[in-house]
């Protein structure tokens, strides 16, 4: 009865406009994201080298990919990097936010200091970091000239530790941003609840552990999304800091993919690695998105 057939013009327009407004974004998504993903998946089954070509080779690229120790290293590094990066950023971010929330004098000054690294790309800060971490001219050298001769900090040159310097620089860049997210979350908590809990005799420690931190769940989730997305896309950082070295010690899937697709002219293998990366992202994100979005319904 009440179908749009007998609706007046304004109502019908109103039923259409929202979809019309959404459609350019949607079309762009479908073509430029999902279309390209499909294209990339397709490429992973072809013999593409320098440019896309369309000779079907089946699973050969995947087969080759898994035989590359290089790929294994980059996956392992991703595990170490993403795990540490997300956990450390969250801890530092939360810690700083809690500290900064104690009616700190000079908050207005500290906040932009914590935040500014997010504004800089590693094309800009890469050299500074490289110098700072370099034992010959950086921190180690400075400490030693200041008299602490036994001080050693040569991680960036050490195959087993270089990945941690990548974590360090990455944490430097984003932990301030995470801090801002948590600070926003803290400021959004109702003070009444805190006062009530204090009346109940909760210590500060318990107050945070039992009352405040559980209420920050949305901030934790947002931080997780942002951090995992940044972890997966980490590329400039490695290129600027270590170039994937020493050896291949700091290679990540993103650098692996770029190198195979563009500098090694093995686009097929590059596409295969991209496909696996995307599937991994999907495996992590889809359950998360599902849970998040369903809850809100």
């Amino acid at each position, binding site marked *: 009865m009440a179908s749009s057939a007998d609706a007046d013009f304004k109502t019908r327009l109103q039923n259409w406009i929202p979809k019309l407004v*959404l459609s350019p974004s949607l079309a762009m998504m479908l073509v430029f994201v999902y279309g390209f993903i499909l294209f990339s998946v397709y490429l992973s089954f072809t013999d593409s080298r320098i440019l*896309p070509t369309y000779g079907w080779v089946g699973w050969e690229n995947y087969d080759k990919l898994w035989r590359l120790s290089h790929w294994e290293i980059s996956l392992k590094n991703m595990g170490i990097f993403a795990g540490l990066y997300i956990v450390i950023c969250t801890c530092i971010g939360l810690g700083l936010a809690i500290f900064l929330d104690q009616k700190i004098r000079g908050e207005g000054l500290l906040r932009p200091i914590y935040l500014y690294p997010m504004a800089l790309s590693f094309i800009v800060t890469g050299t*500074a970091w490289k110098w700072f971490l370099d034992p010959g001219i950086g921190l180690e050298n400075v400490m030693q000239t200041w008299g602490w001769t036994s001080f050693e900090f040569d991680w960036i040159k050490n195959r087993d530790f270089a990945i941690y310097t990548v974590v360090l620089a990455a944490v430097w860049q984003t932990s301030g941003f995470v801090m801002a997210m948590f600070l*926003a979350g803290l400021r959004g908590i109702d003070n009444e609840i805190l006062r009530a809990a204090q009346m109940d005799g909760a210590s500060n420690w318990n107050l945070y552990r039992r009352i405040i931190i559980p209420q920050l769940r949305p901030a934790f989730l947002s931080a997780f999304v942002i951090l995992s*997305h940044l972890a997966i896309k980490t590329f400039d950082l490695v290129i600027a800091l270590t170039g994937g070295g020493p050896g291949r010690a700091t290679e990540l899937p*993103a650098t692996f993919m770029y190198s195979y697709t563009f500098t090694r002219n093995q686009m097929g293998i590059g596409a295969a690695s991209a496909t696996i990366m995307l599937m991994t992202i999907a495996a992590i994100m889809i359950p998360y998105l*599902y849970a998040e979005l369903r809850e809100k319904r």
Partner: protein
Amino acid sequence: MSQASQDTAIRTGRVTRTLIYLVLLLFGLFYLLPLYVMLVNSVKPLEEITGGGMMNLPQVFTLEPWLKAWSSAQIGVDPTGLKPYFWNSIKMVVPAVIVSTILGALNGYVLTKWRFKYDTILFGLMLFACFIPFQIVLIPMARMLGLMGLAGTTWGLALVHVVYGIGFTTLYFRNYYAVFPTELIRAAQIDGAGFFQIFWRILLPSSGPIAVVSIIWQFTNIWNDFLFGASFADANSQPMTVALNNLVQSSTGVKEYNVHFAGAILAAMPTLLVYIVAGRYFVRGLMAGSVKG
């Protein structure tokens, strides 16, 4: 949303407070360190740098590297400095930020206030798009730009940034508008306001905080992008980051580190300014929506 009332009611002792200040200051130093290295070395003559001691304050203070990086450093065959590329970046960033923010706002508005079947799935699709690694879209994107006749233009570059920014701007605005009272929309409907009038007259005037978040996010991401800028720009539209890269990554010859650092800071200046000026609104904007649910 007055700042004072938002502080926690937690009380801390004197010793704890001292410790807290100490930790906060230490982290402040940690964050400032690379900037210090860059600043200090950008005002030294080159010999002082290659002589070692990157942490030392300059013995001879000079602004020469800054001038050189800005207006006379060798970027390509011409010693133009970073100046012309700065404007290229501006021409690309401004429309891209504006368009992606407006689209994000409209999408957020539709997805929260004009719900329809499967809208959540659509949003999920948009959100997932944020995670696509940019390296894989390079070749197909180049082809699409070619087909659309936008290859090598500032507009094409802006389009690319809009496409891959929409996911985030939509996320921000959607979360913000989700807590915006729907009754206001209904009231406006009864008052006779149409879709765009409601958006323009009711929603947008209240969107300041989240617009700041979206603009900061987009501005920094687009300004700092190198991959797209290098791949999709042509000689007349190369952005600042590409020029900086050309300055810093030159393959042979003397590396003028002081000029590199000065150039790096110059290239980062707009984003730094945005963060410093709008930083306080940034936390407020995050507070107003994007971290909630």
